[in-house]
């Protein structure tokens, strides 16, 4: 796809996204769309460390949950405004990324994957057992929603309607895409991809591999934490389930279905997997069963996901 076509396509999708809340009035469908927006942010964040830097980080559920809990607790206990809690939650998640990255990035391959997964389990267990702070398995209730933005002279922008909430999430999704694009296209982003391609070679070229991986991890975790804060304020309830490592698996699956290491792939994957089961109206018992079979099938026959398959198609046409 050449850049102009891509630009127009992006604009077209954006226009559709802006119009959508005016067309869909069904609350249930709007809810699914808002949720997919939030999941897409977290999935894109995971794609930075997984897809672009090549490190199988399996603790994304923890970072999502840490951001969510950090913001929710400061909002509930310290009455912090949502717009201050959001960067705070992201910063805490990023900080944990640093703390965990320092030891975990000493390991490679499967060791790294399972090591991070175990870290995630520890986080979930601690949040579940530390009743004094987190209210344990009963969860945190009544988390304040998106705070209005005061505007001089005009009044304020409120986020009471679903359409407004949708636009808010859309804004943060675009912000995430913007941040990730700028990162990936920068020199740092090139060193991420160099490490994915061949770590020894990248080191030989003078790229400090641990530092670079750590930077990628921190950005990824902070964005995941931001997604967590959006989730907490949108839903208004948090429990240890929202930090579970299986949550991280979901993001991983969205990425793989959509196309790993691409910018659009994770978004398509998220939209597809989040909306499809509802569209198909499959019984819950059989849903996971069918889902599992699709997953196994895809990973064998379309390992680069939908975007990869599309690329192969267009390459074949050209040649």
């Amino acid at each position, binding site marked *: 796809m050449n850049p102009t076509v891509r630009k127009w396509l992006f604009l077209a999708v954006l226009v559709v996204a802006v119009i959508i809340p005016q067309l869909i009035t069904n609350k249930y469908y709007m809810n699914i769309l808002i949720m997919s927006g939030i999941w897409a942010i977290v999935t894109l964040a995971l794609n930075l460390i*997984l897809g672009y830097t090549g490190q*199988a980080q399996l603790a994304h559920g923890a970072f999502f949950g840490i951001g969510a809990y950090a913001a929710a607790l400061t909002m509930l206990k310290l009455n912090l405004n949502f717009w201050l809690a959001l960067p705070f939650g992201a910063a805490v998640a990023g900080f944990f990324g640093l703390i965990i990255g320092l*030891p*975990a990035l*000493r*390991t*490679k*391959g*499967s*060791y790294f*994957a*399972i*090591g991070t*997964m*175990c*870290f995630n*389990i*520890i986080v979930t*267990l*601690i949040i579940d*057992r530390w009743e004094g702070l987190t209210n344990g398995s009963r969860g945190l209730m009544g988390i304040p929603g998106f705070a209005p933005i005061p505007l001089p002279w005009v009044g304020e922008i409120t986020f009471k309607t679903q359409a407004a909430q949708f636009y808010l999430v859309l804004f943060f999704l675009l912000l995430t895409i913007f941040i990730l694009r700028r990162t990936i296209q920068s020199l740092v982003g090139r060193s991420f991809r160099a490490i994915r391609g061949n770590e020894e070679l990248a080191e030989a070229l003078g790229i400090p591999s641990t530092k670079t991986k750590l930077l990628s991890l921190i950005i990824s975790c902070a964005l995941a934490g931001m997604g967590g804060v959006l989730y907490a304020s949108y839903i208004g309830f948090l429990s240890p389930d929202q930090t579970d490592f299986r949550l991280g*698996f979901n993001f*991983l*699956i969205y990425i*793989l279905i959509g196309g790993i290491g691409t910018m659009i792939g994770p978004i398509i994957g998220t939209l597809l997997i989040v909306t499809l089961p509802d569209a198909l109206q499959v019984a819950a*018992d*059989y*849903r*996971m*069963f069918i*889902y*599992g*079979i*699709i*997953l*196994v099938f895809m*990973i*064998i026959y379309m*390992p680069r996901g939908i975007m990869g398959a599309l690329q192969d198609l267009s390459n074949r046409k050209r040649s």
Partner: protein
Amino acid sequence: MVIFFQQVLNGIMLGAVYSLFALGLTIIYGILKIPNFAHGALYMWAGFTSLFLVINFHTNYWVSLLIGMAVLGLVGVGIERVVFRPLREQPHINSFIGAVGLIFVLESLSLIVWGPDFRRFPPLYDQTFNIFGVTITLERLLVIVAAILFIILLQLFIKRTWMGATIEAVAQNPEGAQLVGISIDRVSSLTFGIGIALAAAAATLIAPVFLVYSTMGDMPNLKAFVIIIVGGLGSIPGAVIGGFMLGLIEALGGGYISTDYKDIFAFGILVTFLTIRPTGLFGKGVR
């Protein structure tokens, strides 16, 4: 002091089962280089299979254990052939995703076939022994003895038989093994079958002590990963030592420190361990 020995005994029983489970995982990793995340789901199916045989056909417990091992071993061979063999040439993470897909299939299928209830094995033996004040049921004693027997049998199979030697050869050097005429495909099938059969044995052995339910494999699965990482991926002595270590630490930690945080010990050990020695006790580094 009696409580201490009681806990040690519990730890040994847990450790024996953990070792058996982790052994399967580690030999599969050694050959196929895949973290078989679906190990716990297959373990759960083994528990249900033996329970089904014992309750519906009144099969002898030990016979049903062997049948469960055989059935799940064959399932393992099938899964290797259908799912993991096509993924062998692809990046690591893809096999992992394939395994996660398998968990979804196996766990939802178990809810459909066996239902969501917690099930209990009929009691097998009710004798208890009393050694210097420490009591142990015959059931638990047999778990320990049988698990250790299986560990020894596996060791003998790998070290003393021709077929077992091919497994070790492929684990050490796949290219070299192929050069001398060993079929990687065949060894992969065999390893997967044995690995899953060992998990099946572990499930049936522990099932009468605990319960049988659709997520019974989740925690052992995660802990087995901790064990094989601490022991070194692909290392057999590492899995056995790691398994007993974890069993003892959990039993003593649960008894003396806090039962609430019992499950955290395993994962905490792993994270501290990885910071000190990134490739495990017996690990040889990562390719």
